[in-house]
């Protein structure tokens, strides 16, 4: 027995994303954002996408290309703070935005990846984030039902991968990536370094390859990956 090889070319793998797909996108600010996959998705022009991401990147970077191109129908996000374009698209009704508390977004995605139906939490219960949510009593206390969230596709960025799809992340570039890498029907990982089987230590596979469908080796680390503030 031998573990299967999942390496694939960028253009080919992104072409498998259909219009209307729900796409989970890793990253918190710059670190961990799959900029190359997002560039290719912008180039190919799939429409009517639902994106799930911690933040909207900054203007001119990452998912902002998709928002600017009118490719995003809805964005599920924890904040838009650094991207005035995204706030404008929301305010002008060009893009629907659903806000979620940061750790609850992480848990909803994780629950999707764990095959659970939902989590029950009291987070946001006294705030407007609770509006419209199903409430369940537990031991006499009201709890919000936060449904599991899965993607048709997840786009994640790894520092290192082997060709089976075991992934390792760098520093705070980990963030939402390992959660999203469990929570989609088709998980696509771009990687700075692609190693043969055995190149990732079994203890260091922060995302086990069994969750990953495709691995794309990045030809270059473009300028976007190095920019925190401009």
């Amino acid at each position, binding site marked *: 027995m*031998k*573990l299967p090889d999942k390496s694939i070319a960028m253009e080919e793998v992104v072409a498998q994303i259909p219009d209307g797909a729900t796409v989970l996108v890793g990253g918190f600010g710059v670190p961990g954002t799959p900029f190359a996959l997002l560039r290719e998705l912008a180039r190919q022009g799939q429409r009517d996408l639902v994106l799930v991401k911690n933040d909207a990147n900054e203007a001119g970077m990452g998912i902002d290309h998709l928002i600017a191109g009118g490719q995003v129908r809805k964005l599920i996000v924890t904040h838009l703070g650094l991207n005035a374009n995204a706030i404008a698209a929301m305010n002008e009704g060009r893009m629907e935005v659903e806000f979620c508390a940061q750790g609850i977004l992480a848990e909803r995605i994780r629950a999707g990846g764990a095959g659970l139906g939902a989590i029950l939490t009291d987070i946001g219960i006294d705030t407007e984030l609770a509006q419209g949510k199903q409430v369940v009593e537990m031991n006499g206390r009201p709890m919000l039902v936060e449904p599991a969230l899965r993607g048709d596709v997840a786009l994640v960025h790894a520092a290192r991968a082997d060709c089976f799809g075991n992934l390792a992340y760098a520093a705070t570039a980990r963030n939402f990536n390992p959660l999203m890498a*469990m929570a989609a029907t088709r998980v696509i990982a771009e990687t700075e370094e692609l190693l043969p089987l055995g190149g990732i230590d079994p203890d260091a*596979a922060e995302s*086990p390859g069994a969750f990953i469908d495709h691995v794309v080796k990045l030809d270059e680390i473009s300028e976007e990956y190095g920019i925190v503030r401009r």
Partner: protein
Amino acid sequence: MSDARSRMVARAAREIAPGMVVNLGIGLPTKVVNHLPADFPVCLHSENGLTGIGPTLPPERADRNLIDAGGAYVSTIPGSAFFDSAVSFALVRSGRLDLTLLGAFEVAQNGDLANWKIPGKFSPGAGGAIELAQKARRVVVMTTHCDRKGNPKLLETCSLPLTAKARVARIYTDMAVVDVTAQGFALVELAEGISETEIREATGAPLALPQGDIPRF
């Protein structure tokens, strides 16, 4: 292992398609890997937190921290990964497990499975069996066709507490390969030397026969 069981194991190994993620239950199911080519692309999963199960090792060569879910000393292969118990069952429940091969006490003609409890006699707890049976994309049973007293294990309904409802797709036994269909049990293949009459008598529910000659294994 009897000749009939060996052939059952060899036949069941053909369940495993290239690229699958597979969980093999303790006992007979673990034997199917012996029938796969050395370079066959497959990922074996162990509930205790391992993908890429390598060969079992004798105690003197074992790593005390590396076992499979049945407690056997195993090894890694290039590309193996360790993870915690939550991630391990996340894999099972979220649709990443393509196939599980499990043992059974009883299988009903609608695919119900009972394999964890015999009230008053055997109730050690289900471990991970419920999640494997309920959530693997394909659930296949490997079992003797009858129990030690000669009673059928393939039944109209299960009498024992269920592991999962209507999840078994196929059953490999020492006598036959049987599919679970919307119309109930359907014979797929018969073991060499077993007659139509014998398999009907050994099966506790109606059994549809294939058109034409019955294939043998």
